[in-house]
């Protein structure tokens, strides 16, 4: 908190209480209320994933003799699957796949999309062309895109990553373009131009910092979507290839053996819920702090 300085002999209006600093505001958004809940949920999943080798009592692909489709017990927390593997061990290792997807593919798509949006919006022709291409990509539901792409690339982890990058690229490309256009019209940009600032200076000092802010919110939203895409793709068999596990493939296996081992799918499902919900809560908290 900065103290209000009153200059002696000066007559001035008091500080406007409606103005808040964005940065502490954002910090506050993530340390209280739903932001905090989101952060904790995501945090738990991240810790589970990172500590997978320490937490997992078995190796993810280890077949345990005699342990076929067991229910939850003290030795197998989430039971075992049809080929005698420990579900909990597979789940914590599977989380790593999703973390890779979330924290690698989405930022990659965001960076590429922002760059494309930034560069192409400079000239009218490239701007119109890219935006129309984005329209086409955005017209496909991401799952259709996933099926189409994996038809070319074959199923696998990297197909998932490519699908997510391809799905998020236009989202960010468009967002960056829109906020660039808004910020470019702001008086402070003109103020810099009037004192002689060139386009690069204006871009670096004023336009970029002010246009990137809405991206943080979209990033959180896109990450939750990515978890969903990975889940859906693996569920359909377009994702990671057996014997590797991901949350989506575990859910698929769980659903397949639902009648024999109803508990199987519960663990991975809860993790997906925690991750998606946590990311959405974070994005909501960020969006709210911006509006305040």
């Amino acid at each position, binding site marked *: 908190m900065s103290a209000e*300085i009153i200059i002696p002999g000066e007559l001035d209006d008091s500080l406007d209480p409606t103005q808040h600093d964005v940065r502490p505001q954002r910090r506050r958004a993530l340390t209280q209320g739903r932001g905090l809940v989101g952060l904790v949920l995501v945090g738990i999943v991240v810790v589970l994933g990172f500590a997978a080798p320490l937490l997992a009592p078995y190796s993810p692909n280890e077949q345990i003799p005699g342990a076929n489709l067991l229910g939850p017990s003290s030795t197998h927390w989430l039971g075992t699957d049809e080929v005698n593997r420990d579900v909990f061990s597979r789940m914590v290792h599977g989380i790593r796949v999703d973390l890779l997807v979330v924290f690698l593919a989405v930022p990659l798509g965001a960076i590429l999309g922002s760059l494309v949006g930034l560069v192409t919006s400079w000239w009218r022709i490239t701007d119109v062309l890219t935006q129309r291409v984005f329209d086409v990509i955005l017209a496909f539901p991401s799952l259709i895109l996933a099926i189409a792409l994996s038809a070319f690339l074959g199923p696998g982890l990297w197909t998932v990553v490519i699908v997510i990058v391809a799905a998020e690229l236009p989202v960010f490309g468009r967002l960056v373009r829109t906020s660039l256009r808004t910020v470019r019209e*702001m*008086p402070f940009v003109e*103020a810099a*131009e*009037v004192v002689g600032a060139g386009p690069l*200076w204006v871009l670096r000092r*004023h336009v970029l910092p*002010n246009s990137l802010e809405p991206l943080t919110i979209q990033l959180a939203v896109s990450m939750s979507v990515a978890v969903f895409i990975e889940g859906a793709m693996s569920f359909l068999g377009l994702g990671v290839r057996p014997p590797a596990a991901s949350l989506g493939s575990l859910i698929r296996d769980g659903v397949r053996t639902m009648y024999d081992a109803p508990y199987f799918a519960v663990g991975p499902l809860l993790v997906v819920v925690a991750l998606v919900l946590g990311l959405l809560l974070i994005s909501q908290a960020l969006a709210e702090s911006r509006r305040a």
Partner: protein
Amino acid sequence: MSSPLLSIEHLAISFSHPRPAVNDISVSIGAGEIVALVGESGSGKSMTARAVLGLLPDGATATGSITLTGADGSETPLLGVGEVALNKVRGRRIAMVFQEPQTALNPVRTIGWQLREALRAHGRVDKAAARERAVELLTQVEIPSPEERLDHYPHQLSGGQRQRVVLALALANEPELLLADEPTTALDVTVQAEILALLSRIRERTGTSILLITHNMGVVAQVADRVVVLQQGDVVEEADTRTLFASPQHAYTKQLLGAVLRLPEPDTRVHALHEVDDRREVEPVVRFDGVHVAYGSRKRGRAFPAISDVTFDVRAGEVVGLVGESGSGKTTLGRLAAGLVPLAGGEVLVAGEDLLGASASRRRELRRSIAFVHQDPQAALDPRVRIGDTISEPLDIHDVGTRAERRARVTELLEAVRLPASYAARLPHELSGGQRQRVAVARALALRPTLVIADEPTSALDVSVQADVLTLFRQLQEELAFACLFISHDLAVVHEVADRVAVLKGGRLVELGPVQRVFAAPRADYTRALLAAVPAPDPSVRPVRADETPDEAADEDGLAS
């Protein structure tokens, strides 16, 4: 008045954060009375009016009491009652007029439709009767040919006429009280004068009480019977308008009145004063030579002339005030001098060189000597850049001096605009509006410009702050002797700072001359109309009203001030 029509008692409104918006406000409005709520931003004047109709924003809690007393003596509480009870009062017994007529009207519906809606919202009126009443209402707000206007859309009306329609909407159900929140602030002076006169006449004709919320002391002096002065959520003074202006009691009221800029009285002697043509043989800092500017695409053949054939110059060290109403092209002319607007004809010479014809690098050089101060300091400062960096940005761009020298210059500039050097580390939102505008001035002066273009630099500020910034600006101008093109719609402000005035109307220059001459003895009819429209901050120089015989003493006052 025996019992007031509306009485607000000990109203307090608070948000969870940080201080209460309204602390303890009691106001009573008698039948047929015009009461002005005056105060600067943050004084709680709008909140008070909103509380009357239960229009407080989410998260606000109000305590105290607001009571509406009917002609039959029935009392209706308005605070803490439900929406249903409020809806019986809203529009029917108390109506509200907002500041911005553009947004208060539905752009896709005709005026007639909107008036009929307002009539039907409170009771069933058949179509023919509604139409008849709508015409009557438009007549009441003095809109010419009301029958035709019914079928017009808001965009076909001028700003002033739109505000008249908004008034007609408010009057639709013959309310006992009209809440007018800055009803003329968004309007040009000449239009403002008309609307103010209309408000007085409406009160006379219908007996409607009016609670007028404004920051403009001139407006208060012109229409209000009684004034309530608010400061940071408290009533600091309440008095009859004449008494208040003649002998303000509270220090804050005195300060508010002291900050009001006054126009000089017309003086016939000045006629004799012939203009000295001291056009020295020095090159003017900027010269507009037969300048034309057009907006819109010329390819599509729809160019709209914003500036037509304007010629004048700004000499070294002089302040030229550029005056006009909205759409007069004053801002365009200022932007033209800064090279921000394409030229359709004529020449802009900066220090004798054609600015727009120069090569890019030469233009950059020429621009160095020109600084621009924007209207809204909030928008003109990058919210993410610290004050110190904002001020040194021009120095950084032009690579002036070493880092240490630049930092020293920032401190020097902050000092020049009377801000502590420690402010360099702050972000814009940590400053008040007036402080932000000082920063904008400091930044403009960083490169020691020979010409400063100031586009309405004080119009986004409160009166007392405005006075401060103006004083500072004048001191700096005298000290540093830069030439200045000072753009403003506020004649009093221009009178305060300018050496010469240029009056623009519809993109044409209608008058140009030394400030004393133009204000005291305007030659163009338009200038005269502009000057006459400024509401004098003196209740005794009101336009004479039909029901009121002006007393002699007041007239003398008016001449003396």
